[in-house]
């Protein structure tokens, strides 16, 4: 996952103030502008400032909620849907704690308006595994103690699983790059690296794609 891809969906400062119609003005890449305009014009009618109904496709299920246009995806998940696994730390795209996937692309949910998600498939930490059926990466996190307070952990898991989905054979630098946006204050990085590389090694020796062994089988896309 490159930094550029993450940036294309990070644009809240403007969005909060202006709503969706002018969304394109500060978006950095042409690709994102196109997508935003498409989303804004063809899928998400301009409403507001009052609440509007939207349907989000989260971990394979549709959820219809009513949110103000300025509501971020992180807020919608946490406050409207009580899916609090996704954390908000900086609330402005500096720490990646709020990372979810949109169509399997790691995305900062604190920098994404809920109404802009449209039909894209959302995967949250709740869709990666459960305590009873951990994703192999999550099991490796526990085994290596790649967590302390645990507040950055969901975002770290989302970044690392995405890495393994895209690159089944990462090296240490690949792992560092994948979580280069994820801040951890407890200092769990060394064990995150070790856990992720161990899963990659195990997957390689098993010679089967990660998603087929995924605990809950809910990698969407």
């Amino acid at each position, binding site marked *: 996952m490159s930094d550029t891809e993450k940036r294309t969906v990070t644009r809240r400062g403007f969005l909060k103030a202006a709503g969706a119609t002018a969304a394109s003005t500060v978006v950095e890449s042409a690709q994102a502008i196109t997508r935003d305009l498409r989303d804004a014009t063809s899928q998400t009618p301009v409403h507001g400032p009052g609440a509007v109904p939207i349907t989000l496709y989260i971990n394979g299920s549709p959820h219809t909620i009513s949110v103000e246009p300025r509501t971020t995806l992180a807020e919608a998940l946490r406050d409207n849907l009580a899916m609090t696994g996704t954390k908000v*730390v900086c609330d402005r795209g500096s720490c990646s704690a709020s990372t979810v996937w949109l169509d399997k692309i790691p995305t900062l949910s604190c920098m994404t308006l809920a109404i802009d998600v449209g039909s894209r498939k959302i995967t949250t930490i*709740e869709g*990666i595994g*459960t305590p009873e059926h951990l994703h192999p990466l999550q099991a490796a996190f526990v085994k290596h103690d790649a967590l302390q*307070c645990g507040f950055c952990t*969901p975002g770290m898991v989302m970044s690392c699983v995405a890495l393994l989905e895209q690159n089944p054979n990462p090296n240490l630098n690949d792992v560092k*790059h994948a979580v280069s946006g994820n801040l951890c204050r407890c200092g769990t990085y060394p064990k*995150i690296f070790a856990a992720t590389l161990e899963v990659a090694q195990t997957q390689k020796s098993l010679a089967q794609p990660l998603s087929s062994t995924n605990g809950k089988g809910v990698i969407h896309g």
Partner: protein
Amino acid sequence: MDSEALEQAQTKAPDHSAQKAAQPKPAPAKAAAPAAKTEAKRTDSFLYGIPQLGTTHVDRQVPISEPPPLAANPDLKYVGKPTPRYDGALKVTGSGKYTADIHLPGMLYAHMAGATIPHGKILSIDTTAAEKLPGVKAVHVIQHVLGVAELRDPAKEIPSRYPIVRYYGQPIAAVAATSQQAANDAVALIKVKYDAFPFVVERHAARAVDAPLVYPGPADEAGTAGGGGGPADVPQVGNVHGPARKTVGSVEKGFAEADVVVEAEYFTQVQTHSALETHGVVADWKPEELTVYASTQGTASVRDEFASYFKLPKTKVRVITEYMGGGFGAKFGAGNEGVVAAELSRKAKAPVRLMLDRRQEHIVCNRPDSHQHLKIGAKHDGTLTAMQLTSYGTAGVGTGAGTAGPVTNMYKCPNLLTEEYDVFINAGPGAAFRAPGHPQGCFALEQSIDDVAEKLGMDPLEFRGKIDESPARKVERQLILEKTNWRNRHAAGTDPGPLKRGMGISQSVWYRFVNLNSSCEVRISKDGSVELMSAVQDIGGGIKTVLAQCVAEEFGIPPQSVVIRVGDTRYPIGPDSGGSITTGSISPAARNAAHQAKMQLLAAIAPSLGVSADQLVVADGRVSVASDPSRSWTLRQAAAKMPTDEISARATRVPDYTRDRITYGGVDYVEVAVDTETGRVHVEKVFGAHDCGRPMNPLGVISQINGGILQGISYALFEQRIMDAGKGYMMNANLENYKIIGAKEIPEIEVVLIENYIAQSSTDAAGIGESAGIIALAAAVANAFYNATGVRMRRIPMTPANVLDALGKSGKEMHA
């Protein structure tokens, strides 16, 4: 070791009285004294010492209720074994509910308004527009600000209807509404008129005789359970509070006897805690009880301050902290946000969640900065003759910037003088932050010790061997020699080329604190299931896992099969987690409660088995007749024979078996690369050797040491609060301009943990949070920087600008 200074340090950190509005708690030792006096004792023989140096046994008088001494870690089944985090599966799946995740029926969202000037008097606060905003349910204007210094003479306060504003962002009012957005909108509608006063936000400027006065008279701030705070019985002139002075022998005499003297000034910056979960609470005010979900390091400290502030019996305040997203010393007591949330909840008759935003989090707490002047004298034979430290530091509108801990407690030196000053400025208050004062103090001490070694022509490790009496650090220095590249280091500054590499070491010291407010209840149900309850909170250190290991060891059952319930003041009281106090305080209570429950179980079922209780043994999850192993039952089968449905035992921490003063520490080795053209410093490798009594869960301890090392590197290289001198606010109160170490700056880290049996409690455990690397790393990096470049880096953070400045390559230097 200076015993007087250590005594002070020991009484400082566990002191609960910290919370300004709270009643001071009785000193732990006093609280438990009567029980300790009356209980009969027996003599047990305990393992003692460090395996690398050879262990022995010592006799201790212990209360007869104590379980038998615990064997060495290699001979145990669960204690001392790397054990995955008890709640790991819940954390990696996002299932654990943190305070920020609590959502109660009808809950409102709150936001606080902060001052938009750094110093002044509030003339009026108009909340009319805020109150009218749809969704707003309650507005509260703050009458008293917590967490700051208080004037010794309240009559000296500037007359004002509202609290005087002394820092930008100081809480003024708060709003509760049906959504976070509505609350935030309403706060923006609160109109505050000020009479702005002159202000000062820089330490050196605040020391000037004509500097604006932050307080109109002497002011003091007490510490918290995490430490911090400053002395109250010191003079104050202008903004300069102090000195707190400690004297041993005569430094004049000591320097006169010295063959070499080194003298240097050191500067460290303000670091903010930046826990990922901000300070915050969910407060639910009901006539029958106030329930508070709090992101805290001390459920008891929160309960006590709420009870005191609102004049409620402690029995009517319940505090819950099941999951907690980091504190690092800054989260004790109710806090302004807690009090405000409770006020809003009382007014709105609904639960209120108030979490600080990231900007507010940067302002609510910090590690004070320092300007230290350190002078050390030594003889040719490597003995220290005198050490003199003068430190100035700012904890903003608070106190607690002293740095003398390491100088006072690390090395033996007959003559010592330390003078610590706090300097008030118009900035957010300092707070205890992982080993308060010690990273600053070590940054100075450990560089100067290297300077002395160089002048004496000694290897830095060898020199420390002469002046350091700690057996643990002796072993740790030996590990550095054996496991690192130390012996191959080059002379300082001799690495050719623009990219220069070097190695450095630093030592750290921390103290054994025990909080006797540490109780556990262990229950055995008739189906053989076992659970433990304590109000102690797990702040990420992993105490749940350690408690499970303690119970598991007694019954011989896997730790994961024990149910651990913590973080609720309805359970037996737990210690506040500050000063590396938690594991050493609560783990003996857990083991004792488990042991006593086990003995009760055996006594209860022995008659039905036709034996006496002392003929029964428990091992590997089975109860057996010692003389007839064929008669054996699973714990479940045995519990089924209980005459009642539940057996329960509660144990409270007894004082340490002796009154020995005990310190912990570590020695950290780093390799750095310095790009002398760009000024960039990269830490390439760290090797840390650390001790914490009996390591209970090496897996979790090493995680904490990794964290201390990385916070230390982050402190050494990146982090820095930047104040706008013209406007008086923190310019980088966010996580993109306040730079914290990230994945790409993580070096290779190797940690070795030594066992150090001290024969002080039924587990002999101790914490690691403070001595985990944060104390030593900045000094170790600086010593490695010197080895690489031949230039002393006496100022952190070692940003490219500061590095180029030190190397004489900054634009300023070139134009001079």
